[in-house]
């Protein structure tokens, strides 16, 4: 039985039909270019996603703007340093939500190193200072 897939490599959005072969390979039709085959293979055999979320900061309010200014920043945006296996995303999110990041923090700081031996880190995506 074929599986239906929309290729998202470019805006054309080819509708792919994929059949799993006895040898484990995939037979792809409906693609207008070779990137469709690559996409189908990645998406069906080892799908990955970049995960972006926010983490709690220790001590609450933080701001990268005016010192002493009104500020309601209370979450630190973070993301995975690379795409992470899709089925493990809920586990990765749980680890991110369990973080309590102490300030200051700089963009690019590694908050979780090599999650579950995947080679993927969780990094801060914003610089936040401590507000006294």
């Amino acid at each position, binding site marked *: 039985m074929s599986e239906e897939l*929309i290729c*998202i490599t*470019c*805006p*054309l*959005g080819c509708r792919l039909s994929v059949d799993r072969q006895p040898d484990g390979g995939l037979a792809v039709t409906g693609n207008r270019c070779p990137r469709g085959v690559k996409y189908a293979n990645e998406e069906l055999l080892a799908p990955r*996603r*970049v*995960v*972006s*979320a*926010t983490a*709690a900061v220790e001590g609450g309010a933080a*701001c*990268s*703007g*005016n010192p*002493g*200014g*009104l*500020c*309601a*920043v*209370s*979450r630190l*945006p*973070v*993301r995975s340093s690379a795409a992470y296996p*899709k089925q493990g*995303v809920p586990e990765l*999110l749980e680890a991110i939500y369990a973080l309590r990041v102490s300030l200051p923090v700089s*963009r690019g700081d590694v908050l979780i190193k090599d999650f579950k031996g995947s080679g993927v880190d969780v990094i801060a*995506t*914003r*610089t936040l200072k401590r507000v006294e």
Partner: protein
Amino acid sequence: MKDLTFDSVVIGGGAAGMAAALELDRAGFSCAIVEREEALGGILTQCIHNGFGLIEFNEELSGPEFAEKIEERLAGTGITSFTGATVMELDASGDIKTLYCYTGAHGVMRLSARVVVLAMGCRERNRGNIRIPGDRPAGVYTAGLAQRLVNIEGFVPGKDVVIIGSGDIGLIMARRMSWIGCKVHAVVEILPYPSGLTRNIVQCLHDFGIPLYLSHLTTNIVGRERVEGVEITPIENGATRYDKAFTIPCDTVLLSVGLVPENELSKMAGVELNPMTNGPVADSMLMTNVPGVFACGNVLHVHDLVDYVVEEARRAGAHAARWLKGERPKAEARVKAGPNVRYCAPSRVDLHAANKLYMRTLIVKNDATLEVKVNNRVVKSVKKNHIQPSEMIAVELGPKDLEFAVGAPDPVVELSIS
């Protein structure tokens, strides 16, 4: 009252404002950015998802990263940034423009400049704009407001969500809400096709099994104190099938029904707006009808990529610097949106310079042709693999393309798609 004078003032400290200011500074003009938020970066600071910067930085970044990388370019320049400062009044009637700002740090502040760059961005259309009938309970948010609450302030606006409109912010929020443990029950779209990118349909809806109801109208929001459900009605062959209406229970409604350039200050300054874009009518220098007032980014027209915003803003800043040096276009042609084109920005091209135009189409089509006519003569024809209204199309027109317009009375450049 604090009273300061600069060569130029940029209103808005998002990607557009920063990029325009950098060009003015580079050309040797003093420049101040006025930003109402406490930090620079604009809307990017709440767009924590990935996908920004492929053109500008050649890598995929989240919004806050993109904003910070642009902001870092301000270091070591002469640019003055006023954050937490809201421009309340813009008087652009004279050679010297005056801005009155409210600030936490300095009280009321007056800024004077020969050039003002409008870079205020856009805001979301809300329930009033699309007239959804029903009660007025708590729990109805625009998608961008929910995004700010979740990503910056750390509030979860509800548990069971229905999203009205399939714009990209709504799709991104469908994934975000799912990832914080909410249940997104549906995305409802009045049109027969989604208005967001396919990529977001796949990764933000399909990944979570969220149904997308195309050709469905929201006919009621139910609930007295808090949202209790949304009634949606299918549209079949142009008829609203009230007999087939059904209600999806939920406690939260997010609206992702389009963006409108924020031009209150522009109007105050006498800037003429284009009803198709809701942004200023701009000439080939990205200058409005008010001399010395320029516009760029989402306040000019709503873009789909911040990379394009930065590119356009850089041109606006560079043009503003040239204008300050006394340069003016020698001859311009009017740009007209022809068949299947919703709008083009800017509204004029310089016959003797390289021009870049952004446009949006009205149709979805594969293997389309973009045609440029100068005074009814075809001068350029470009093949496009795929076009759709949600994706902006860029066109470059140089002196060679425009030579037929030179010397002609009231020359017109018409862009059309077939």
